[in-house]
């Protein structure tokens, strides 16, 4: 994955993770594995973990501890109403950005 992708991802990863969680609840490892499958190969599990701690502290997700076959219980994250609101705002911002960038690319400025 190029340096440029990594840089661009920094500002959008939070929205990406919330969007994944809007589909269904998931734990950190699943989210990282999904992103890797989608070609975001350089994403560290710890980066996703740090982000999950952050969105938990900001009150965007509900957390449930679920026993796992191996190792300690897993924290399963699900998007709550506040998280959904924030995700809507993320998509609005994203649409604004992509429209403007598309205009720039077409030379409209």
């Amino acid at each position, binding site marked *: 994955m190029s340096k440029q992708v990594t840089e661009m991802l920094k500002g959008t990863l939070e929205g990406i993770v919330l969007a994944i969680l809007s589909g269904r609840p998931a734990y950190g490892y699943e989210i990282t594995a999904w992103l890797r499958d989608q070609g975001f190969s350089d*994403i560290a*599990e*710890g*980066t996703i973990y740090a982000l999950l*701690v952050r969105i938990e502290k900001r009150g965007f997700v509900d957390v449930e501890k679920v026993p*796992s076959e191996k*190792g*300690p219980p897993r924290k399963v994250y699900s998007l709550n109403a506040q998280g959904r609101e924030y995700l809507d705002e993320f998509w609005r911002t994203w649409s604004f950005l992509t429209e403007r960038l598309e205009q720039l690319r077409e030379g409209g400025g």
Partner: protein
Amino acid sequence: MSDIEEYGFISKLIGPKKRWRAYKARVQQLPENYRTAVEAVERYMMHFVPTDNDNDASRFEDLADLFEQAAADGTPIREIVGENPVEFVEAFVQNYTEGGYVPARARKRLTDDIERAAG
């Protein structure tokens, strides 16, 4: 009950020193290279000033959670901390602190220690 409330309650009950000892005991149980990596991250996090006592303890407990789970899953250390461990730790520690003073040699030491642990 959220973890923050839960840990806050536990911390009143057992105190910060016991939480620290409990964390250290958990780290001792990890496979050696995971332990080396956790201790490298721990050393680097010491440069950051926690916002309160609860955040001071929970940053280490959350760190232990991450590495215990990763060790159980068999996730390689490099996949946990990424190519740039400094970036990972700084993003992680932001959740518990308002900042800190980190000398350049500490960044180098973290990078070198993780390199050694990741093999």
